């Protein structure tokens, strides 16, 4: 099966995506559409069809007659740096955990 998106459609990488849910659509129809359009489906605790979509994806869904609720903007960005351990933190944490356990070399 060939890619459904042409190269020109994807050359411009989106800088933002959106969390979206499909409303006013039977669940079964919505999940089939999400799969057919190769959309990034996210688990949803409320049983909704939740997706991570680009603006282009949202447009395609609208063109197919779906009601699309955009619930959050998700910029394309690296993990927030305050969530990444520093090397020193990682090493100190490990040292702290295994402190007192006899290790090779007698430490």
């Amino acid at each position, binding site marked *: 099966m060939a890619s459904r998106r042409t190269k020109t459609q*994807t050359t411009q990488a989106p800088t933002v995506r959106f969390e979206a849910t499909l409303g006013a659509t039977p669940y079964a129809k919505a999940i089939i559409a999400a*799969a057919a359009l*190769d959309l990034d*489906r996210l688990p949803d605790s409320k049983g909704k069809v939740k997706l991570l979509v680009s603006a282009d994806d949202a447009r395609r869904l609208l063109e197919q007659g779906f009601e699309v609720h955009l619930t959050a903007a998700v910029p394309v960005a*690296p993990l927030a740096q305050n969530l990444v351990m520093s090397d020193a933190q990682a*090493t100190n944490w490990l040292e702290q955990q*295994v402190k007192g356990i006899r290790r090779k070399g007698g430490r």
Partner: protein
Amino acid sequence: MYRTVRQIDSATNLLSLFFPNFFTRVRLPETSVEGRAVYALQIRAGGGGARRAVFIAGGTHARELMNPDAIIELAIDLVMSYSNGTDIRYGAKTFTADEVKLILEAMDIWLLPCVNPDGRNYVMTVDDMWRKNRRDNPGTSCDGVDLNRNADVVWGVAQGQTSCSPCAEVYCGPSAFSEPEGRNVKYVLDTAQVVSFVDVHSYSELILYPWGHAPTQSTDPTQRFTGLPTGTCTASIPTGYAEYMPPSDVRRFQTVAHRIVDDIAAVRGRHYTPETSLTLYPTTGTQGDYAYARHIANPGLQKTYGFTFETGPSLSDARESFHPADPTLVKRDAKAAMLALLQQSVCAIELIGIRLFGASSSFDALRTVRDNLLASTAAGREWIALFERAQFVLLSAVTRDAKLLKAAGDLLQQIAPSVGTADAMFAEADAQRASALLKKLRAKVKIPALQRDMEVVGQRINQLGGRSMQQVIESLMRHKPSQRKSGTVKKAAAPAIRRR
């Protein structure tokens, strides 16, 4: 906070350097698409040769950041418990030091904390919602293959959450195991005697087991995935098709999944749901299904029970669900789940065999009776459940006492080889020895429910001494532990020669 790929590699390196008797760091044969080395950590304590193994993999999907960290932290929890003789406590759930010791001395544990290092690095440096590996897909500007759709099981059947489109987040790749990261998972499955495998994902609080491509059924063994048209990206699963799984395996998956769920709930009350992968959504080429499918596609291979965990709750914000600002509590649940799987993979009888005789092959007859006979009836399954419920506590008690261990070993060695033999007897003398052993064990076990279980076993042993092994097994298959045995089974005349 989350570890970088380099920090995960450093942790496995340091652990193997600090504690070489405990950890072996194994560089897997394939480097990632971007050329990163991929490392697994093998853990074992005690001596002995080849053992059954449990294989825990994480980080298959890049944005699911918690699990590689949880796997590293589990490794440290295990060595601390073993070295210090301390219990592992996750919230209100305790795994005792004795239980951890048994796990580590009974099995090999293979940890592959970060299956997809390129993807993790990309999440930390470019796009925190990236899922796939970093394959450059020729002829398209879309990168990446979904490593959890690329395994060789019903590969190339695009349905539900599996796609043959390179731009899809669930792209299955150009061929089965086209990706080096997935081939590393296959390598460990090929190399170790893996009895249980779990691929740890996030999120949704689920414990998943096969099948993902079709509903599971246990009535028509001819419906096997090996007969499905696959591999073309044009085939589909026939309407009404349901994949066969033997009832004993269905039960095993359900039992283990429920025990894992119970242990997670004991931590802080989170309620994970056990279900087949299909219940979440249809998939093909997943690593959990592949691990279990291997022995069906090639009967010469070890059977592996393959699971997928989905750790962490579904929150309103997807970013916070995939990588919460504070993942501590979810990691604790995940570690309890992994440890529960390890515990469920220990076979008590096999461990006694290893401890005393350096091998477990003489107990194969017992396993055959369990899987092929007892598991085929409701009463037999209750006996299996009783044994599995009790085995860990009893084993801990037995292994703490050298005399008890020897007595249990001698008894097992005496009885086990004859269990599957038609004319063998369960001698009165053996029944008396078993009763005496149970009595001593009962005195050591302080759990009332377990004491009641042991009383039931003791009564049944007393009733069955002097019968043929065949009659003993038939009785267990007919009469549940809770049921008084009827007097229909009569003592058989002992054959002239007892077969051992």
